[in-house]
């Protein structure tokens, strides 16, 4: 199995005034292609720092990080921006869609920063991504005309449009009710079954049970790493949930 993410003895220190905060104290983590990994932990455990480093938003103080065969640990700001553009898809808790900009244009955004993709191809790929998340009929809608779940689907389409090697989701169901959460998880499971590698930060154990493996952080260390048995199929949970009447 090909390793998409290969992290070894990774450390990250922050300097706040004269105090040094050890956010990560030597982490080894390997994520293979096709995995759906839950990153869990209390706040301050280092999971956000981990996600920032995996997402090439931040660079480690020490250690190596090989993403899709490329060592990205020592890369400059601009090199990391290019890597993010080509290899990573982000899904945020608060969706982060551009307001007063149509769903289609929001999804096109990552490709705007890739000059190899021309306008026509950009449009086609954005349309395909929106179709893949089931929003073919909402392309021209503005974010404020969409429900939370639909907005998050637009965000997922945006993370898919550049065909990344890994999708990073940061509490992607945090703002959604449980029914919509399972809808979104069902979509993620669907993508995962088609071969997408997904790293998903969450603190909800039920949500984590939709994935293939969980990694638990505490105080800058990984304290537990396990395959998830009795995996939840989000679509089945959804059917079992009572439909709420308005």
């Amino acid at each position, binding site marked *: 199995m090909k390793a998409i993410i290969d992290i070894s003895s990774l450390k990250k220190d922050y300097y706040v005034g004269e105090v040094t905060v050890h956010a990560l104290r030597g982490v080894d983590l390997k994520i293979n292609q096709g995995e759906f990994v839950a990153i869990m932990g209390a706040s301050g455990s280092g999971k956000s720092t981990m996600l920032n480093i995996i997402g090439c*938003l931040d660079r480690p103080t020490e250690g190596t990080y090989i993403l899709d065969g490329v060592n990205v640990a020592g890369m400059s700001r*601009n090199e990391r921006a290019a890597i993010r553009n080509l290899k990573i898809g982000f899904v945020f808790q608060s969706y982060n869609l551009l307001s007063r900009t149509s769903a289609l244009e929001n999804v096109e955004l990552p490709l705007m920063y890739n000059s190899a993709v021309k306008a026509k191809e950009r449009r086609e790929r954005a349309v395909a991504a929106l179709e893949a998340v089931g929003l073919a009929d909402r392309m021209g809608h503005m974010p404020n005309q969409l429900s939370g779940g639909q907005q998050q689907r637009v965000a997922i389409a945006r993370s898919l449009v550049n065909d990344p090697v890994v999708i990073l989701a940061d509490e992607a169901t945090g703002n959604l009710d449980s029914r919509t959460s399972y809808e979104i998880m069902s979509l993620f499971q669907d993508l995962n079954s088609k071969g997408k590698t997904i790293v998903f930060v969450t603190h909800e154990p039920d949500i984590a049970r939709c994935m293939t493996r969980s990694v638990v952080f505490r105080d800058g260390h990984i304290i537990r790493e396990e395959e998830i048995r009795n995996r939840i199929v989000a679509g089945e949970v959804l059917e079992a949930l009572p439909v709420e009447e308005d």
Partner: protein
Amino acid sequence: MNIGNLLKVALNALKRNKMRSLLTMLGIIIGVASVITMLAIGQGSKKSIQDQIASMGSNMLFVMPSSMRTGGVQQGSASSQSLTVNDVSAIKTECDAVIAVSPEVRSSGQAVYGNSNWPTTIYGGNVDYLEIKSWKVVSGRNLSDNEAKGSAKVCLIGRTVADELFGEGIDPTGETIRFKNIPFKIIGVLEEKGQNSFGQDQDDVLIAPYTTVQKRILAQTHIQSIQMSARSAEESALAMEQVEEVLRRTHKLRENEDNDFQVRSQEELSTTMTSVTDILTILLGAIAGISLLVGGIGIMNIMYVSVTERTREIGLRMSLGGKSMDILLQFLIESIMLSVFGGIVGIMLGFAASQIVEALTSWPISVMWSSAILAFVVCTVIGIFFGWYPARRAAELDPIDALRYE
């Protein structure tokens, strides 16, 4: 991000905040419009002075007697009798930069026709006098050479004098008027010139042969001044030198003696007058320029607000692969668009305002295309200058902090 996408992104951002973009542009619009209008007013008055001077003959030169000492007593320049008709002939034959030369004698008095009378000035000159002074004859004819030399009692009449003596718009050619009790037959009417830049009515004149004025009215042999045309306005200076050389010789002045005459040119006068209006133009332009500067600061202010407000957007763009340069250019182009759009509207408004000022005040207005081009360039520079710092601030944001910004 390529330039097409950058332009699209910037345009969308401005469209998302239409009202704010318009108000920000308003600062630039007013600034540019006032610069254009003020320069048009300044330039207009300069042009009108130049036109008036040209109407008196822009290549005109003249020699006046200057003050001189007689036996240790400094004489007033008007009392000097140093210029004569011989000087005129000498200039005519020797100065090749001078194409026309005429003596000038003048006398003030009452012109009388029937029971009307009017105080005016009679000028005496030769055949070339009209051409030198840029006079045109609208009715009748110019003086002839014989009349000029033979003290003929004929004259040309200015429009003001004709109006006062004969009535508005009447052509008095062929009539006879009296000036200081001497009858003058009117042989022509002069074209209207209007006021000169000193507010003097140029049409309040009679023009007669210099010999007539010299002998019959003034009873003198000297002349009051010599009027000349240089070959061109550019050759005025050369002509002045030649005239000075000739007159020093004909007046038999020694090396160490001062000139008993002075040579002046319309060109000099024109330069002096236009330098005043240049100062006026600079002053008006500078005041308007300040409002343009304030408009630029308005753009900077809005761009700072915009960067702060859109911190999360910046973070998002960075996380999706936007490089610092992409973010910098995005905001810089927004600011340039604001100032350039504002500039274009301002230029149009400035042109319109100039027309309105002209219509309301009847000041001479001259809109310069060069000021429109200048305003356009200045706007672009303002956009870059005032957009630079906010754009750099945006570009230097840390994507993690920007994404978390509330």
